[in-house]
């Protein structure tokens, strides 16, 4: 295979599409054969068309350049998809659902009986020192008992081929709009790749989300009014907010559109105040209500927490859910699964060390050149220290930071992220590290969109996949099981127009209807 001739997977890592001998894996054989047939020029040409399409459609995200300037870039999509066989997805699906159920139970427990604290598993002082522990909602039960309506847990495949959860995200995980737009773009840019595959569709996410919100909404018989609440056009993820609102067919509101009267939340319409039953909010707890959280927040709705407390409005994700995706709490999730569900975790954690324990801290400092250190309160890959990639000076600096404030950090074993063939210029393919962020929706049940966002570190050897740090993405294909009655998607077939009445020139057959995708 010419373009993957000098394809060198870093030692200790798996590749998603090629096996240890450099041969295509069974589920990737057809794809790689097609790529070879199309040749590198096809990839290059498609890449140029991709830039145009994304910029035109405004599928961008904001990135802060090294000079501090903020710019809109087209969301970087690598044209070689990541492929996963059906059986593998089933394991991931079950493991995630289990994990989300446990996290949900944890949030409920933290704000009510503290059973897991009483059982001596998680120290109360740890929970109460998390910045996202929301005292205003202590004792408040979310409608339907669901707190983690939308979750985006980040998964990685370790060197031994096993799946591990790298990080839980149950606050305002983003990226689903790129998943959907990537698939649309792929069908337009590289339709030939889809031939011979039955790839499970992913565009039903908005209706999953809408259903979940409608189910938990305390509407009491009325037709539930669901809204998407955005901080506004200056937010880097604004594209996704408008996308979801449009796809779900609901209003996109900003803070000034909402008002709380008598502990009920309304939106201002031209016909007066209309009640809102469920809010999918894309801003952090800290900003949602100046009466209970940050008093200087102009992005908030005064009285919203009061309405939530009275149970007249559902908020997704629930207020205070951030206590579950704190990196220090992550360490306890396998125990949570055992405690709340009585099951063994299907997906493992990456071994994590809390640095507040003196002995642990000393061990970690000895092995700083082998480990990863992350600040507990940052997101987006900021401030992550990777031992094997760091210079002696950087290690020294990190050690000082840890000594100064150990509670601010956790340490993890380095995961040998799997790689996948990625176009690196002129149609050439090379291995780049990837992770996976599936998106789950919890309404009456937990439903997970097949695949999710595969993020790829575009720089050679880099393990940081976040888009804000220069990462890219790939379309993620979960193949349908044989015999499953899932719809095929992305199959390219030429369309035939219907017969025009009164046109007698012949040649039009007119009866065949084309298959809807």
């Amino acid at each position, binding site marked *: 295979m010419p373009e993957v001739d000098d394809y060198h997977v870093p030692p200790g890592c798996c590749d998603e599409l090629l096996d240890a001998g450099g041969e295509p894996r069974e589920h990737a054989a057809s794809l790689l054969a097609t790529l070879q047939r199309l040749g590198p020029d096809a990839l290059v040409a498609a890449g140029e068309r991709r830039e145009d399409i994304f910029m035109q459609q405004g599928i961008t995200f904001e990135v802060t350049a090294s000079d501090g300037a903020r710019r809109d870039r087209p969301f970087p999509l690598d044209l070689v998809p990541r492929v996963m066989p059906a059986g593998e997805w089933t394991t991931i699906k079950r493991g995630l659902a289990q994990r989300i159920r446990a996290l949900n139970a944890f949030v409920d427990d933290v704000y009510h009986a503290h059973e897991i604290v009483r059982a001596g598993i998680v120290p109360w002082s740890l929970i109460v020192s998390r910045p996202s522990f929301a005292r205003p909602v202590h004792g408040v039960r979310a409608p339907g008992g669901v707190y983690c309506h939308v979750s985006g847990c980040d998964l990685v495949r370790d060197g031994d081929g096993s799946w591990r959860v790298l990080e839980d995200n149950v606050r305002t995980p983003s990226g689903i709009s790129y998943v959907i737009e990537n698939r649309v773009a792929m069908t337009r840019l590289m339709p030939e790749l889809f031939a011979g595959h039955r790839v499970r569709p992913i565009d039903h996410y908005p209706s999953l989300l809408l259903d979940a919100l409608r189910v938990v909404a305390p509407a009491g018989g009325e037709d539930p009014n669901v809204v998407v609440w955005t901080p506004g*056009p200056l937010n880097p993820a604004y594209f996704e907010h*408008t996308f979801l*609102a*449009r796809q779900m067919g609901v*209003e*996109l*509101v*900003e803070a*000034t*559109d909402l008002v709380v009267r008598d502990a009920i939340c309304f*939106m*201002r*319409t*031209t*016909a007066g105040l209309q009640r809102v039953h469920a809010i999918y909010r894309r801003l952090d707890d800290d900003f949602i209500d*100046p009466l209970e959280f940050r*008093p*200087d927040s*102009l992005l908030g709705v*005064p009285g919203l927490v009061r309405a939530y407390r009275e149970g007249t409005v559902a908020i997704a994700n629930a207020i205070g859910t951030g206590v579950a995706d704190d990196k220090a709490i992550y360490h306890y999730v396998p125990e949570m699964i055992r405690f709340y569900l009585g099951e063994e975790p299907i997906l493992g954690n990456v071994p994590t060390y809390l640095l507040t324990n003196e002995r642990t801290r000393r061990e970690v400092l000895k092995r700083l050149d082998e480990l990863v250190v992350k600040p507990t309160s940052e997101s987006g890959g900021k401030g992550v220290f990777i031992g094997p990639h760091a210079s002696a000076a950087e290690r020294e600096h990190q050690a000082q930071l840890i000594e100064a404030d150990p509670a601010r950090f956790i340490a993890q074993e380095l995961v040998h992220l799997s790689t996948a063939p990625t176009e690196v210029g002129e149609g050439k393919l090379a291995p780049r590290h990837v992770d996976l962020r599936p998106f789950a929706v919890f309404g009456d049940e937990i439903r997970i969109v097949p695949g999710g966002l595969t993020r790829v570190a575009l720089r050679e050897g880099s393990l940081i996949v976040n888009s804000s740090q220069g990462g890219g993405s790939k379309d993620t294909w979960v193949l349908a099981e044989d015999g499953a009655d899932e719809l095929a998607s992305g199959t390219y077939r030429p369309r035939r127009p219907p017969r025009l009445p009164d046109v007698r020139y012949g040649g039009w057959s007119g009866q065949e209807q084309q298959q809807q995708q």
Partner: protein
Amino acid sequence: MLARIAQELFWLGRDLTRAEHTARMLDGAFHADVAGALADRGVTLSWEGVVAIIGAKPPAPGEKRRAPTDVPPPFDRHEVAALLTIDMATPASIASCIDRARERARTLRDVISTEMWEALNSFFLSLGRYDLQAALITGPYSAYQEVKERCALFWGLVERTMLHDESRSFLEAGGRIEAADMVLRMLRVAVPADLSAAAEGAQPGHEGEAIALLHAVGGVQAYQRAVRYAPALPAVVRFLLYDDGYPGSVAFSLQALRAALHTADAQPRSSPPVLRLGRLIADLELQRRTHEGFDQTLERVQHELELVDHDIDERYFAIAALAAVHL
């Protein structure tokens, strides 16, 4: 629909219409000036007049108030033209109106069609590229022509591509109320106080004014087909006020405004702006027959229209004020 979105649509309609009328008025003033009409024929639709009409308007939401006339008299046509065409610091200038319109359209991307957005976007970009400064000195005709054409394009796209729903009604309403307002202001400035409404024939000293007025709304041909006499001031004023066949007349604008609100309102029969408009239209019809002095009519109609504007604000957009915190 969300009150905030309706308000943006309403003001998008107003901003565009304001730009268009301003362009026409300035074009008319240039025409009269060049034709030597201003000095000899006592045309009050002069530069001072235009500034008075536009400068006295209250600011739109998002507009910062600036002192109405920073240009001291006597008004130099270049200065006024520049002020009202390209000066971004003057909220009422054409450039400011289009800038605001485009910003509003950005918020409204999901509500207006792609073509409407692209028309506005390229309108805005073209103003930047167009050397208006130079054009204003040599002959601004093409600049104002460009403005008129692009506004016409936009409304044409509205007609062709926008769904007949609440959003469209608010957009339309904004355009109509602004049109009525601009024509009323223009008439109040241009019409001498002593002009008798009953006079039919041409009066000496006023011919220039009559033509300037018609130019300012683009109604020369329409008037000639409707009235068939040489333009005489009282007849022109009556035409611009009452003729419900001519789309630029006050009566036409008010009726279209009422129709738009009637569609948009959930309960038009008990809607204060719709009801008030109904009374105003009936009143106007009465005036048409009674030959009351123009002065009183114009003042009363404009005052009522201001109340309608306030009613619209109250009924559909609610009070969007800032929140403050006290401890």
